[in-house]
Every structure is written in structure tokens, then in C-alpha cells.
């Protein structure tokens, strides 16, 4: 059977998904865009893409009960990735949309990048993984963001127990500096696999580096093996 393994991309509204679809295809997967919570819970691999603003995206997820579906996946240790805003949604809140609860899988609040540099940060910057990272590697990655998680917030997310009962065996970060340092990626391990991968950058637009990062992530999760 030569059927390609499916990669479910969570539909969050007006998303421009062509680049994420193209990433899936480069990885030999069949991209499937879905807003069906059952499909999102069941899927072997799910990507939460990043488009639009924090508040409307959370509202869209809640309308379709996709917030619970994603929390359940993460609690089960199923392969799940978030990109750009899709990473920010994993935190408790964002300055972009005050009063809106995020998925709350990690503690901390997303804040506007504060510096005297042009915003949004548009372009290539360095991904600098901490020494305990096994999946994330150093390299150039492409960003398009005005918000992020400041590094000074990151002690809150270290340790096994994070928040809301989400147990990880290990969590490692990568940081990037745009005036000041922010959290640019998170790998969280369950049962010997990096089940959760969050990227503030756009792996789908980060050339070969981004494609290879996702290839490693999928393979460490066994997601490209035939069923």
C-alpha cells in the first residue's frame, strides 16, 4: 500500500495554508485541512498553523471544540506542532488580545516584542537551541512576528510539570535575539519522543533547514512510517 501518511492542518479561519501544505508535500505527506475535532484528536500528526490574531484564532478553535482536541492530543503525547501564532496559542494569554484565554499548555504570556527595531520582525534570524535540545539545531530561520515569549518568562516553563496537568519528560528551548532574546522554539518530550514541537518562526518558509527540522520531528515520532 503506497498511500501517503496524512498530516492534518488545523483550520483556524482565514489562514493562508499553501506554504504549510507545500511543506507537508515536500515531506512526502498528504496535507489534510480540517476543523473536525474528532479528526484532530485521532490524527497521527497535527500542525496548528499561525495566521491572524490571538483572539480570533482562539475563538475559532473554541467554536469547533478544537481547543479541547489539541489539549487532549498533547496530554496523550501525540505528535503535534504549532507554527508562529500556532505556538503562541499554547500559552495562557497574549497582549495582542487581552482577556482571551489561550490553550494554557505552557505558563506565561505572549508579549509585543519591545525594542527600537522595526516591527514586525520580518526576515531570517538565528535559532539558538539550549544545550539540552535534541531535536532543535542551530541555524537560520524565517520570522514574521510582532509578538513573542520573552526569555525572562522561560523559567516558568522549565521542569517536568508545566501547567494544567501536562506532564512532559523533558522540555528544551531555542532562543533568538531581536534586540532582546525571545523563545523561538520549544521541543517537549513524552515517552521518548519529541511529541510537541512549537516554532515561533516559519519552518515552511525556512528553506532546507525548516524542511529537515520537520523531517526529523516526524521521523522521531514515527509519523512517516506506513500504518
Amino acid at each position, binding site marked *: 500500500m503506497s498511500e501517503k501518511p496524512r498530516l492534518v492542518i488545523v483550520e483556524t479561519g482565514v489562514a*493562508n495554508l499553501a506554504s504549510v501544505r507545500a511543506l507537508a508535500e515536500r515531506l512526502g505527506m498528504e496535507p489534510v485541512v480540517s476543523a473536525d475535532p474528532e479528526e484532530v484528536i485521532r490524527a497521527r500528526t497535527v500542525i496548528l498553523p499561525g495566521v491572524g490574531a490571538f483572539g480570533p484564532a482562539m475563538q475559532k478553535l473554541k467554536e469547533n471544540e478544537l481547543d479541547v482536541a489539541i489539549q487532549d492530543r498533547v496530554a496523550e503525547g501525540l505528535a503535534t506542532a504549532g507554527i508562529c501564532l500556532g505556538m503562541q496559542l499554547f500559552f495562557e494569554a497574549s497582549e495582542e488580545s487581552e482577556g482571551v484565554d489561550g490553550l494554557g499548555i505552557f505558563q506565561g504570556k505572549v508579549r509585543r516584542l519591545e525594542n527600537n527595531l522595526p516591527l514586525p520582525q520580518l*526576515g531570517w534570524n538565528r535559532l539558538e537551541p539550549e544545550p539540552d535540545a535534541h531535536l532543535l539545531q542551530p541555524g537560520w530561520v524565517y520570522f514574521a512576528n510582532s509578538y513573542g515569549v520573552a526569555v525572562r518568562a522561560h523559567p516558568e516553563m522549565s521542569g517536568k510539570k508545566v501547567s494544567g496537568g501536562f506532564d512532559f519528560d523533558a522540555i528544551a528551548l531555542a532562543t533568538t535575539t531581536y534586540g532582546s532574546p525571545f523563545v523561538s522554539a520549544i521541543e517537549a518530550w513524552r515517552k521518548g519522543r519529541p511529541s510537541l514541537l512549537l516554532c515561533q518562526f516559519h519552518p515552511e518558509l525556512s528553506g532546507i533547514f525548516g524542511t529537515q527540522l520537520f523531517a526529523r520531528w516526524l521521523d522521531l515520532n514515527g509519523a512517516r512510517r506506513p500504518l
Partner: protein
Amino acid sequence: MSGLAVRIIPCLDFKDGRVVKGVQFEHLVDSGDPLERARIYEAQGADELTFLDISATVEGRKTMAKEVARIRRSIAIPITVGGGISTIDDAARLLDSGADRVSVNSAAVRTPKIIGDIARQFGVQCAVVAIDAAKNSAMPSGYEVRIAAGAVPTELDAVEWAKEAASRGAGEILLTSIDRDGTSLGYECTLLGLVAHAVGIPIVASGGASKLEHFLEGYQSGASALLAAGIFHRGEISILEIKNYLAIHNVEVRL
């Protein structure tokens, strides 16, 4: 030090789905195939690609969307598409096809509301405002906005218009000097500096770069990204040469 690399951006002009300017690669004679060109630039280290659709027909625009979709499948760097975008539907069609950002020019001057509409619907990073500016001493900044491919003066001050575009939600300004475009004289650095200091969003410098030092001057004037077309298409300077030159002058580049 920001940490962010200055972007080098080749610009491809499209007409009816073909690349139409400066097609002089020896090994690409009679090619004009945008996908082949895009692949070469990605391999040479382009940080992003900009496509400008100069088709004048509805058919031409449909072809453009198809070409963007074809290129998107094999190119893994950001793509900005501009030219003839006058409605939110035009923008949506190109973004659906695989553009990461769209640039609006004449339509934004005629209907400034479109800037905020694109920013709200697709995100600030999607909304690029292209400004074509020409010297005019009657303007407070000394530069006037022109539309319709530079043919029509607007009596809008270029720096004031850039500020308004940013306040309406533009995530980037693609700033072309009409006086320098097609010359080999280098970017219009005075204009770049004025606009870069007036707004808090990234500026793409465009028009006139032909030598390595022009790229350094553009960066030093405050541009976040440096665009060129003809010199890349004709093979006169490679992207790698520019990046090496900038790197030895202590400018952050992605190598």
C-alpha cells in the same frame, strides 16, 4: 545589534505568466520560466522572492495565480506578489495560491482602506505597501508618490504617505525610486533614510542598485531588505557576492 539578517530579494517581473525582464542567462536562453528562475535564486541564497505582475488582462492575472501556485510547491522561502491588486479578493486569490505577502500600490493610494483590510484579514505581515517615489522639490520631503507604474503624479508627499500606510496597518514598505529605477546609480539613499526614520516598519530598498557598494549604502540608509532585478537576471552580480561583501563590512547576512 538586532540579530536579524538583511534580506537580499530578487524581483521577477511577470507578464502572462512569463518572466519578461532581462532574461540573459546564457544557459537559460529562451527560458523565461519563472519556476526555473526562482529555483536558481533560492539555491543562490535569496532570502525572499518578489513577483511583480505587469499583465494588463484578466487572463494574465489568472495565469499569474497559477504560476504562484506552481512555484509555491517547490520553493521554501517567502514569496511576495504585487501588481494589479486592487481588491481584498485579488489579495485573497494570490495568498490562496501560495503568496506569503501581497503588495498594493496604486490601489492603496486610491483606496487607502485596503491596507487595513488586508492587515486585519490576513495579518500585518501580509500587507506590503509599494511606494513609487520621484523627486519633486514642491513636496515637503522632496519626494512625491506616483502611481500607475510611475506615470501619474499624486501630489502626495512620499514620507507622509509612508507614515499613513504604516498607521493603517502596513507591515512593510517596498520603496522604489523612479529616478533611480533602471539606472545603475544606486539606491536613492536620501529617500530611504527619510522613510526609514519616519516609520517603525521594515523598508525594502528598490531601484538602481548595480554595484556591491550600493547594497551596503542601502542598508546603511536604514533599509531592512535590498531588492534588485536586472543585475541578477543578467548574471552581473550574484546574491552570494553581495552577502559576502556585506559580511566583511560587519552587516548580518544569512550565509
